[in-house]
């Protein structure tokens, strides 16, 4: 009974304050979309880093069957060549610059490739044969990349030596910058949302002061008096958060999934499914912000 009563109170409150409620929904929607966009950019960065990015800095790709590089004129790498490269890596001349290194076979390369490009159509057209085996090197000092490159580029059986960081670092710094901007805008918008929720709840409490006055006199508990107001703010914010989540999903699905992955088939994009893990976080964030700001407002403006 009390629940039904509280629900009907919430309904009438939302109806009475419809324009304010809509503005709360829109402001939380926009602010949480920016929060979510920052989250999505970070997820995208992780996706692009792939399996090796955080573990190693330099990759020595070995010749495979289709290699066209000058060093691969002698065909795919032979076990002897691979053995001598391994020995060279372990020799004191080189090992003083590196922490450790790992060998990635064609099969392992295929496995990691599949993980990274799981959302991309390219994954179906690649076989383990097409992927080169490689040595992945964790440098003591990533700046010494040049030494490794000079030492190994001319070795037989080496297709190319790549400093992965250099390739992606610049892109990542742009994306990190973009997420900082998104977080900044989100912060301002969240302040707006909190203030707007507080104002809305205050108006709502004022327009229903007759009811709350009577509720107080007949001995309604604090919960019964306050809960409708708090839930009013929370419901509006949660609707805004749900809209933000849907927007992020749509961006991942239609923009990244259908447009960008066609334009840039060799880049790994996050899937629309992955953005859904942001949804509960956004909803909890929106709901708790609204709850706290409503509660603080009521403490001041609703005498219980």
């Amino acid at each position, binding site marked *: *009974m*009390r629940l039904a*009563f509280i629900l009907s109170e919430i309904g009438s409150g939302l109806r009475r304050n419809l324009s304010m409620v809509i503005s709360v929904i829109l402001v939380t929607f926009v602010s949480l979309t920016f929060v979510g966009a920052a989250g999505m950019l970070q997820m995208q960065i992780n996706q692009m880093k792939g399996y090796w990015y955080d573990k190693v800095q330099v990759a020595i790709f070995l010749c495979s069957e289709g290699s066209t590089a000058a060093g691969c004129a002698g065909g795919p790498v032979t076990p002897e060549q691979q053995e001598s490269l391994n020995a060279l890596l372990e020799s004191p001349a080189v090992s003083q610059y590196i922490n450790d290194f790992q060998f990635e076979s064609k099969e392992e390369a295929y496995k990691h490739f599949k993980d990274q490009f799981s959302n991309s159509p390219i994954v179906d057209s690649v076989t383990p044969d097409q992927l080169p085996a490689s040595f992945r090197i964790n440098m003591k000092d990533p700046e010494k990349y040049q030494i490794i490159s000079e030492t190994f580029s001319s070795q037989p059986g080496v297709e190319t030596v790549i400093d992965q960081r250099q390739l992606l670092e610049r892109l990542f710094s742009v994306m990190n910058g973009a997420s900082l901007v998104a977080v900044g805008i989100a912060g301002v918008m969240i302040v707006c949302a909190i203030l707007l929720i507080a104002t809305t709840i205050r108006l709502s409490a004022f327009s229903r002061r*007759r*009811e709350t*006055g*009577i*509720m*107080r*006199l*007949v*001995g*309604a*508990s*604090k919960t*019964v*008096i306050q809960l409708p107001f708090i839930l009013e703010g929370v419901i509006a914010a949660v609707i805004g958060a749900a809209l933000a989540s849907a927007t992020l999903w749509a961006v991942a699905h239609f923009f990244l999934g259908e447009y960008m992955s066609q334009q840039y088939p060799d880049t790994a994009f996050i899937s629309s499914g992955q953005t859904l893990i942001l949804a509960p976080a956004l909803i909890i964030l929106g709901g708790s912000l609204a709850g706290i700001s409503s509660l603080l407002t009521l403490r001041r403006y609703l005498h219980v």
Partner: protein
Amino acid sequence: MPCRVLRAMIRFENVTKVYDQKARPALDSVNLEIDRGEFAFLVGASGSGKSTFLRLVLKEDRATSGAVYVAGQNVAKISSWRVPRLRRGIGVVFQDFRLLPQKNVFANVAFAMQVIGKSRSVIRDTVPEVLKTVGLEGKEHRMPHELSGGEQQRVAIARAVVNRPGILLADEPTGNLDPTTSMGIMGVLDKINQNGTTVVMATHDDDIVNEMRKRVVELKNGVVIRDEARALYTSIIPVVGQSRRLKDASGRDDDTENRLPGEGEAQR
């Protein structure tokens, strides 16, 4: 002593209430006892402390010193989350009715039961019964604006007593009504009192007080200057048990002497 406390529905022990340190107290060491089932009028000019008295009973305000007991409980010792329970035991009626304009008669009365979580079936049974007690049977579906002032006040009384409180506080319930309608309202309050509810009514209406012949407590400048059973609105000879207080009060008469007798109580 505990037995006396229990017999008294409302008991003020040396209660002083100061709103403003510089002004005189709104209530000045008031000792008063209103027994279970009693009907008492609280009379006095505006600013004499009637409303403060009612607010202290409801724990809307806290006494500056002294103790207020309601149904044997010291209200100062009731924690804030249990205040609603105290208020469920007290019905309140105002001069301005305070009905919800967008709800009909039934819904206005039912509201008092809904907010404390009474079940729908109990509400369906109780509300018509209470409306009958106040003489409004058959008007369940009227809206407040379709009712006369007297009928609106009956709705307000029905709402105040629907949860069967032990005490009914009425703050000038007839202040907005004509004499005939007022007598009707008094009949309702008397009926509720006959059913065992303690009624405390603050009023300026001398005709009603003279007609009812109930206990009269007269306040002046926050001091009880008269407490008489079966009394009139004005006493020919002020009879006060505590003569010291009478002297105190008469010494400070001047500031209220100029007030109009019918002046309304300050609204909260």
